[in-house]
């Protein structure tokens, strides 16, 4: 176990996100700030949802198993809704920030667009939530032990890492979709994000039947990715041209 599992799971879970961070966010201080503020908002939403869950648990009978399970399900769903609510609040804050930035800039346009903010905010939410899910696991993975010795699944760490990775991506895409929905007052997109989130969280109830949770998550991620890409102005031609440019070593056009 220990080191190989630790490094393996860390890179599975955080590798792609780290790459995205390094290449798109790390250069621009404004984006870093938005990222951290996004992480903060997610944290606050988690705080409130844990508060509610904690109160319900304390107010109920701890020995009643089905009730506790029910409360947990309620806690998870409530947390999902609260996260999306805080995403909306963050959207409002960023809108105001953009207005401030525009008024202060010399040429009347903001140094960062709302779409970029959407991406970074989604990333912030994703990174923080995955850090919270994964870090204790990773710390435990570093120490001695055997997974699944009591009959639980032996793939616990690996599947957690994969689930975390998919959730980071999903949250990033949801950020883009959600903000776009808010921008253009299209409630379908917002509703779609909320429904997707509830579906993903619900599917994790199938764990340890991983085909029930991981497969749908990856499929949903592919869907969300395509949707976000199309909404951000991408198209199949762009993709094709990008791939062709790479192959032919022509002037690479970097599109942000």
């Amino acid at each position, binding site marked *: 176990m220990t080191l190989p599992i630790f490094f393996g799971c860390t890179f599975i879970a955080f590798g792609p996100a780290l790459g995205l961070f390094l290449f798109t966010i790390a250069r621009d*201080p404004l984006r870093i700030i938005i990222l951290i503020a996004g992480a*903060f908002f997610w944290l606050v939403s988690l705080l409130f949802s844990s508060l509610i869950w904690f109160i319900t648990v304390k107010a109920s009978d701890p020995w009643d198993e089905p009730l506790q399970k029910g409360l947990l399900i309620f806690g998870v769903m409530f947390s999902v809704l609260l996260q999306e609510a805080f995403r909306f609040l963050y959207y409002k804050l960023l809108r105001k920030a953009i207005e401030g930035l525009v008024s202060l800039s010399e040429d009347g346009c903001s140094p960062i667009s709302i779409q970029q903010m959407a991406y970074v905010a989604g990333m912030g939410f994703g990174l923080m939530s995955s850090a919270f899910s994964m870090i204790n696991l990773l710390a435990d993975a570093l120490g001695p032990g055997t997974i699944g010795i009591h009959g639980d699944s032996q793939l616990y760490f690996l599947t957690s890492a994969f689930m975390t990775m998919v959730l980071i991506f999903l949250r990033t895409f949801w950020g883009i979709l959600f903000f776009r929905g808010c921008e253009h007052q299209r409630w379908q997109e917002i509703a779609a994000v909320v429904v997707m989130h509830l579906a993903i969280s619900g599917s994790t109830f199938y764990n340890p039947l991983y085909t029930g949770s991981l497969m749908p998550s990856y499929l949903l991620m592919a869907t969300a990715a395509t949707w976000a890409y199309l909404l951000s102005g991408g198209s199949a031609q762009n993709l094709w041209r990008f791939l062709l440019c790479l192959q032919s070593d022509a002037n690479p056009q970097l599109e942000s």
Partner: protein
Amino acid sequence: MITFMNNSDSEEEPCNERTSLMSAESPPVPSYQDGLQASQAGEAQAHRKRRTGSSRSPNNIADGETSDSGVPVREGILENEEEELTLKYGAKHVIMLFVPVTLCMIVVVATIKSVRFYTEKNGQLIYTPFTEDTPSVGQRLLNSVLNTIIMISVIVVMTVFLVLLYKYRCYKFIHGWLILSSLMLLFLFTYIYLGEVLKTYNVAMDYPTLILVIWNFGAVGMICIHWKGPLQLQQAYLIMISALMALVFIKYLPEWSAWVILGAISIYDLMAVLCPKGPLRMLVETAQERNEPIFPALIYSSAMIWTVGMAKPDTAARRSSQQAWDAAEDGRENHRSPSHADSQMSERRSPVPTRPITSFEELEEEERGVKLGLGDFIFYSVLVGKAAATASGDWNTTLACFVAILIGLCLTLLLLAVFKKALPALPISITFGLIFYFSTDNLVRPFMDTLASHQLYI
């Protein structure tokens, strides 16, 4: 305490407030254990800086009561440009502070999690004489409050002493004190730290190697901090010193006392910087009366230079470098952060400024950066380190406190941009940090643990 530093001397007035920013005479920073005082000294400096810088360019440096005397006419014209520039580069300043704060916290958390020495209870400082090994909760609470009162009064007394020393111009005493305390930090504490790390990893080191390493580390540190050195080396030393001090606090402060002290210190910081009767204000006013620069003692500065250009020989800069040399000869005090003088003389990097050049006479060298007192570093790291040490082995709490502190810092810098006056950096961050520590440890942890045990994801 946070302030923007903005030294611009384009005026040719002999001894105006602005030129006094250049060098650093030292203000008395009492002793290493009062990182707070260091931060207050820093605040003092910041105030100073703010006063002096304000008439010229308000990079969030406010107008103090006394600075209105020399306000030039051009201020109004420049102000808007300055504001834009400030807020445009404001994000950069925030990141320039995020990075060292993060580094300091990482060092502290890494040490706490790996080296057992700093989490073992081996007695307490004399500033916190009451023990917390009492049977009842009430008694424990009372003891921790008493400890806090003693600690804060020690700090207040020291600050007042410092102000008095400064008022009566006992500079040599102060210099000596500071050099002594930085010697102790750089040599003794580093030796202990190195010893513990080597013990933890079971690495043998012979005495000659040890002496060589410690001697080099300490000597270079003294030079960098008290005299001159490359900016990044100075910053690295300041970060290491803050980390060492934070570790000392984490080790020797009993649990509940530490939390109450953190809370009390942020309230004290708030009052000392903002209240008109605070000792720091008096320090600043005294320095202002004497037209002396406030030392950058125990201040971390992230200086960046934007060279706009020079239209005329910069007599002010020459004067400042002269002052800087004088100050260097006098012996700087502790933790001399990359001084403006250093930055001006040695660091000429930077990019094309984008602001429009309005007139030839206005070209000057401007240095833009943010300063944060080392005391702030220390207390941030104490909070995060305590969270790492005592939060039931949970990393979520540490992470939450870390994000909370960064956001508090961000908000403080935002307020700095809005209010344009020197602000205490502790209150907002520590408040957020404390809230998040207690709530994450008690509320979020059970929730996340339950979720993890069922492998549910939210």
